[in-house]
C-alpha cells in the first residue's frame, strides 16, 4: 500500500537525483525510502536511475577538454598506487632491496613495527615543488616524468611506448654538469602499455634522456636518442 507520504517521497526522487536537496534532507529521504514499502523504494530508485542516465546523456552538451597536465598528474598518481609496474632493473631495484633488508633487520628486534615510510613516489607527488614534463616518443607513445628537486627524486610514466628492437634495451640517463649518468634500463619484456619507474637520485641533473642501447645497456650513451625531458 502506498500512502500520501509515499507519493510525496516519489515526488522528491528527481530533486534527490539532481543533488538538489540539502545534505540533511538527503539523509532524511534515504531513511524514509529504506522504511518505505518495497514497491515505493523500487519506484524511487528507478526514477533516480533514469534521471542519472538522462543527465549522463546531457553531459554531451557541456564537454570541455581538460588541460593535458591533469592527465600526466593523474597517471603519475595512479602509478604511485599501482604496485604491479616497476619493471626497470639495474640499480633502482638494487637500492629498493637494500632499503627493504635494512628495515627488516631493524624491525625484527622491535615489538612494534614502525609504520612504512612513504614511498619515493608518494614523497615526490606530495612535494611542494612537484613538476611534470611530458614528451612524445618518436617511435610512438609518450613519456612523462613527475619530479621534485626538493625530494631529489622523480617518477617516470611511459604510455603506449613500443618495445625496443630484439637485442637492445631502452636506457635512461640523467643529464647534468658531469655528463650523462645511467638511471636504469628497460627490455622488451618490461615494456607494458603503461610502465612506471622511480628515479631515486636526480642530483643536479637538468634533463632525463632515453637511448636505445645494445645488449643489456651501456656505461655511457652510445645509441640513438629516443626522447629528452627537461628537469628544470
Amino acid at each position, binding site marked *: 500500500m502506498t500512502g500520501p507520504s509515499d507519493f510525496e517521497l516519489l515526488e522528491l526522487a528527481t*530533486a534527490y537525483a539532481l543533488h538538489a536537496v540539502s545534505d540533511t534532507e538527503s539523509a532524511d529521504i534515504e531513511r524514509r525510502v529504506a522504511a518505505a514499502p518495497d514497491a515505493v523504494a523500487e519506484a524511487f530508485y528507478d526514477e533516480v536511475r533514469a534521471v542519472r542516465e*538522462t543527465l549522463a*546523456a546531457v*553531459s*554531451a552538451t557541456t564537454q*570541455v*577538454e581538460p588541460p593535458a597536465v591533469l592527465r600526466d598528474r593523474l597517471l603519475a598518481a595512479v602509478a604511485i598506487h599501482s604496485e604491479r609496474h616497476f619493471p626497470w632493473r639495474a640499480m633502482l631495484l638494487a637500492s629498493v632491496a637494500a632499503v627493504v633488508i635494512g628495515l627488516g633487520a631493524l624491525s625484527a628486534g622491535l615489538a612494534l613495527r614502525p609504520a612504512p615510510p612513504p614511498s619515493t613516489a608518494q614523497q615526490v607527488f606530495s612535494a611542494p615543488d612537484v613538476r611534470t614534463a611530458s614528451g612524445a616518443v618518436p617511435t610512438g607513445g609518450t613519456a612523462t616524468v613527475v619530479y621534485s628537486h626538493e625530494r631529489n627524486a622523480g617518477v617516470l610514466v611511459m604510455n603506449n611506448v613500443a618495445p625496443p628492437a630484439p637485442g637492445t634495451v631502452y636506457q635512461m640517463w640523467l643529464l647534468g654538469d658531469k655528463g650523462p649518468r645511467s638511471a636504469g634500463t628497460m627490455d622488451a619484456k618490461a615494456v607494458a602499455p603503461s610502465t612506471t619507474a622511480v628515479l631515486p637520485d636526480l642530483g643536479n641533473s637538468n634533463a632525463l634522456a632515453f637511448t636505445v642501447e645494445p645488449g643489456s645497456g651501456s656505461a655511457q650513451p652510445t645509441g640513438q636518442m629516443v626522447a629528452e625531458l627537461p628537469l628544470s
Partner: protein
Amino acid sequence: MSGSAQHRSELDALLARVARKDVDAFTQFYDHTRARVYGLVTRVLRDPGYSEETTQDVYLHVWRNAERYNPAAGSALAWLLTLAHRRAIDRVRTEQAATRRESRYGAANTDPPTDVVADSAILGEERRRVAECLRTLTDAQRQCIELAYYDGLTYVQVSERLSANLATIKSRMRAALRGLRHCLGMT
C-alpha cells in the same frame, strides 16, 4: 541510445578492469570520459583551478573505488558523472558558505567544448540530438534544471529564487527530466 550503446558497454568493461587496478584501462577510461567530467565540473564550479582539483579527485576516487561500481544500478558513465556532479556541488556549497560565488571569474576563460577525438563522430551526433531535446523543454523547466543542476541550488532555494511554491518546482523538475528522457528515447 543505440548510437552509444556500444560505447556504454565499452566503458562498463573498462571500469571492471580499473577495479582490478589495470593502469591501461584507467588511461582509456579517462580519455573516453575526461571532457564530459571536466566539462560538467567546470560548468558547475566556473573556476579552472577548482575544476582541475575536483576532476583529479573524481578520477582518483574512481581508481580507488571502481570495485564499488554495480552495473545493475546503471551505466559506468552515469556512475562517474553522478560522482563528478556530487563533488562539484559539494565544492560549490562549501565555497558559497565562505564567499560569494559571483565574485569569482566565470567560465569564459576555459577552452571551448571539444570532442574526445576517438569518439567525435558519436559524440558530435549525440550532442546535437541532446541539444535539440533541451530546446523542447519550456523556459521554466530549463531554468529549473539550470539553477538546480548547474548552479547547485536546492529545490527549496530554487523555489525562493523564482518565488514559486515547492510543489511547482518539484513537478517542473520531474517534467523536465521526463521530457528529456522521452525525447532522447530512453525508457
